[in-house]
């Protein structure tokens, strides 16, 4: 019998402890406000410093030196290896159709798409349907919890932070591959991260470096986009009238 494998590494164990602490903290207080603003802002400063010193320059180098098609291929590989995790989460959410689609996508892109380098399934009508354990928790009825900015990982909520940890530990790909394949997977993820940072340079720079309060902007953008993603399946006109117009015209024409 093979010895049991423990994919839990030190950093993961650390973040698990961190998240447990956050959850314990948020069990008590009210939700809806930024209860961890002070520590969050400290982490934000740290993350922003890392972006300035490492991520942004590295992404500029990567984007300038590596041709677009190659970067796209690397990002495709990273996206492909995330599909088994998507399948598990879609299944846990009862989204069997999406689970089946992502299974097909993974099989097609891993074979005809040469280990995921080429996205064959997307143009054929099966684009990536991203999900994660944070969304699974949402489907199961878990509330968002408090807003947290995680070191290295960036904006999250206490629910989504738990989701990230669970996704990392339960990652089906991580359980079946060993070195050197796991190194290639990690490399493709790094490439994908740099590619994303490069592709959206101006938008991300605008939030991080041009705004008057980059922490508040990051928080707003993350929370609104996350809620949008999670509410997507049940979108109603009423739910989306966070259009923000109501008090606009009350203020303007009704006073």
């Amino acid at each position: 019998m093979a010895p049991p494998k423990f994919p839990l590494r030190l950093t993961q164990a650390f973040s698990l402890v961190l998240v447990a602490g956050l959850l314990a903290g948020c069990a008590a207080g009210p939700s809806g406000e930024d209860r961890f603003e002070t520590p969050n802002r400290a982490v934000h400063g740290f993350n922003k410093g890392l972006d300035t010193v490492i991520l942004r320059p590295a992404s500029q180098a990567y984007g300038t030196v590596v041709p677009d098609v190659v970067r796209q291929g690397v990002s495709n590989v990273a996206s492909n290896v995330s599909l088994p995790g998507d399948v598990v989460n879609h299944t846990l959410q009862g989204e069997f159709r999406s689970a089946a689609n992502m299974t097909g996508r993974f099989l097609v892109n891993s074979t005809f798409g040469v280990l995921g380098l080429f996205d064959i399934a997307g143009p054929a009508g099966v684009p990536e349907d991203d999900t994660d354990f944070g969304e699974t928790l949402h489907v199961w009825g878990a509330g968002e919890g408090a807003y947290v900015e995680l070191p290295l990982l960036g904006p999250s909520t206490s629910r989504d932070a738990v989701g990230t940890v669970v996704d990392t530990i339960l990652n089906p790909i991580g359980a079946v591959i060993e070195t050197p394949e796991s190194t290639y997977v990690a490399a493709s993820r790094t490439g994908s991260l740099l590619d994303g940072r490069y592709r959206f340079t101006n938008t991300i720079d605008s939030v991080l470096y041009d705004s008057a309060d980059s922490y508040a902007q990051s928080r707003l953008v993350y929370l609104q986009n996350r809620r949008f993603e999670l509410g997507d399946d049940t979108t109603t006109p009423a739910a989306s009238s966070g259009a923000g117009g109501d008090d606009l015209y009350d203020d303007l024409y009704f006073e």
Partner: protein
Amino acid sequence: MTIFTLNNLSRRAVLGGLISLAAWPAAAITDRQARTLVGRLVDDINTVIAANKSEAATIKEFEGIFARYGDVPAIARSALGPTARGLSGSELDAYTAAFRGYMSRKYGKRFREFSGGRIEVTSARPAGRFYEVLSTAYLRGSNPFELTFVVSDRGGEDRFINLLIEGVNMLATERVEITAMLDQNGGNVARLIQMLERAG
């Protein structure tokens, strides 16, 4: 009982009800009108994207589009929040002009990243007292994403008053941003205006 109820209504609600009855008796905007407005707006944006001009030229085009289709004074006032109520007419005008330039620079640059892509209007639906026109942006090398234009006729004619990009609300974003700028300037609106003239 009636008096009791009236006391519970805010002055704003009563006034609002009266004014809306008087000014917009049956002028409710329709799906088709909202869609038409956003259709023209999106056509203009697509033209600018396809032209692929210099950043300065693109920004200038966007300032025109923003002023033509958007209710700029309403958006500007809403972004400033309660502070706007205390301003004189000329202060408000100066602030609105600075805000328009700032928004055109900021979002003109964003839309410039759409180069080689296009936006397509997909549907329209009522949302409270406004209309939402849904559209999809197709960009090279990234998954299509959803843009929602919020349209209202409450300023007197059909105008867009908000934009949501994958759920991220432009007006809410600008409220946070303008509030932070105002704080940085110690609540001084004249200094905020100067900052806006350089920002974006």
